């Protein structure tokens, strides 16, 4: 029996994306699957609290809420406003420490 029509398989948008995961995604998946990401997150939380960054962000949030009025602010608003400020004000030593941890992890996780 002949194939009725010769045509390529129906493209599935999901397949397309899954075909080529970026390097970033690969690393992310590896981090999560090994449980390292959770450990790094806890470490990051600890460092950010110690350095006072969390308190600074809280203060920024409070200022914003005071300005806009308590009932006129949604969590999406806050995230949108605070995220760039937060990202910019992370102390360098913390960044360095985390990068170092990730590098160490990658070296140990990559098969030779």
């Amino acid at each position: 029996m002949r194939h009725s029509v010769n045509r390529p398989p129906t493209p599935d948008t999901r397949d397309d994306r899954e075909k080529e995961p970026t390097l970033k995604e690969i690393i992310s998946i590896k981090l999560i699957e090994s449980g390292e990401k959770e450990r790094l997150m806890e470490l990051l939380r600890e460092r950010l609290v110690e350095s006072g960054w969390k308190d600074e962000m809280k203060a920024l949030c409070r200022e914003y809420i005071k300005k806009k009025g308590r009932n006129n602010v949604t969590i999406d608003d806050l995230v949108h406003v605070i995220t760039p400020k937060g990202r910019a004000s992370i102390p360098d030593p913390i960044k360095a420490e985390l990068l170092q941890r990730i590098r160490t992890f990658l070296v140990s996780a990559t098969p030779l």
Partner: protein
Amino acid sequence: MCSSNNLYKNPKPCKHLADYKLKNGLCGYNLIQDCFKTTPYGRTSLEISKSDIPRCSICSGCQGRFYMCLICSSVLCCLSSESNHVLLHSQSQTGHEISVDIERAELYCSVCCDQVYDPDFDKSVMCKHVMGFSRTENGVEESELRLSKRRRLSFGMDLDIKNMKRLFFRRDQKSKSCFPLGLRGLNNLGNTCFMNSVLQVLLHAPPLRNYFLSDRHNREICRKMSSDRLCLPCDIDLMFSAVFSGDRTPYSPAQFLYSWWQHSENLATYEQQDAHEFFMSMLDRIHDKEGKSSLATKDNGDCQCIAHRAFYGLLRSDVTCASCGFTSTTHDPCMDISLDLSTCNSSPKDLASKSSKPNESLVGCLDLFTRPEKLGSDQKLYCENCQEKQDAVKQMSIKKLPLVLCFHIKRFEHSHTRKLSRKIDRHMQFPFSLDMKPYLASSIVRKRYGNRIFSFDSDESDISTEFEIFAVVTHSGMLESGHYVTYLRLRNQWYKCDDAWITEVDEEVVRASQCYLMYYVQKMLYHKSCEDVSCQPMSLRADTFVPIAGCC
């Protein structure tokens, strides 16, 4: 009695949450309970699959905040306001507005673009948390209702107005001062400023003042009843009578000092001593004498001596296993709160960071006191859930507030390793009005589990959390040779009590002083005491103010 602070009232649900509840009731919350897992340090999070990372069902992305729809359980991402798939989902499917933040296990409404709260949801989170540690009794405390009767605040401690009036009307006609009654200098009997400063505080602490001035400790009866001639409360009573008699010449508390020496022989020297230590020993002595009587304890075991009634509080200490999140709780009684100066030990990391160090403040110290503290790896504690020693995190909070709150600032550092002691002179800001609500166990514990509207410790809501300062004991000088001065706040006017010298001072002076012990009383007691007869200025002539000078 005051109602609870409106910061923590249950917020009204948004229209979408209300609709969801109507249609679905609690079944969504119950089904999702299976996915709750406790992360280390006690937070609750959603775990959809043990091995796979969360991926958005619309874009398969793995970045941003993830939400799980309560109706269809699809996982959606929200990366930015442009790429908001959880909103997209609710727009394409009606009724699918409410979802759960996966990282935090908190409710979210995608139409309102905001977090929403439902006590039933939080209840299901907390139940799972409690059940997860079924081997022991963790958390049962929180849902347990105290069966003992609610503690009633008795204002003024059965103030007997008539008795007080009899004392006060023996006026000293020569008195020119328009100071409130009860302000009298105390002579320094040889490095006794530590004692004088604390005595001034106790003479004006509303519960103590009312107690002694209502003749609740009657010297004649006491002498008849006990064969033990040594009674510190009697000496205190004597002092109250003297100080509130209207006589303005400085008083020498020699009898009291002698009596106190007899109680604590090792401290019977003329050396400079620590005011805080003296304060604690005073409370001890009062309790020793009064707490022993048969009427001393209430049904729930609380001691009813005046020292305890005024100063007794309860601290809660939670130790959380860093590995499994299991928390064990203990309660410790306290008569005061000792606070470390918050910006004291800065690590090199902090100095390098861009953020400028905040000014030292009481609020900062309280924040530090209630902050979760990671215990060092040499202090591993046995976790009942893991059945082995684990790293742990400790957090303090206040379970029960006293009527009078005493803060002790640890300015004297004693280092055993280096065998030297030093004094930390850093200035500390402190407010005149203080709301202790954020430091209560209910607030602290609530924060630990995320943003919950679960009511913890319903008992606490009937005690007021607002305090007013009424006394500050300051220390100036060095560790070995310093001087204590007390500032008293009577009817919103500050007075400096420097041994025998009492002067009116401005607020700014008090704010700029170096506080060591700070005394706050519940707001209602403070305002009531301002209205009391005892605080009315005695002189009818509005004289220009004359500072009381005494010879020492």
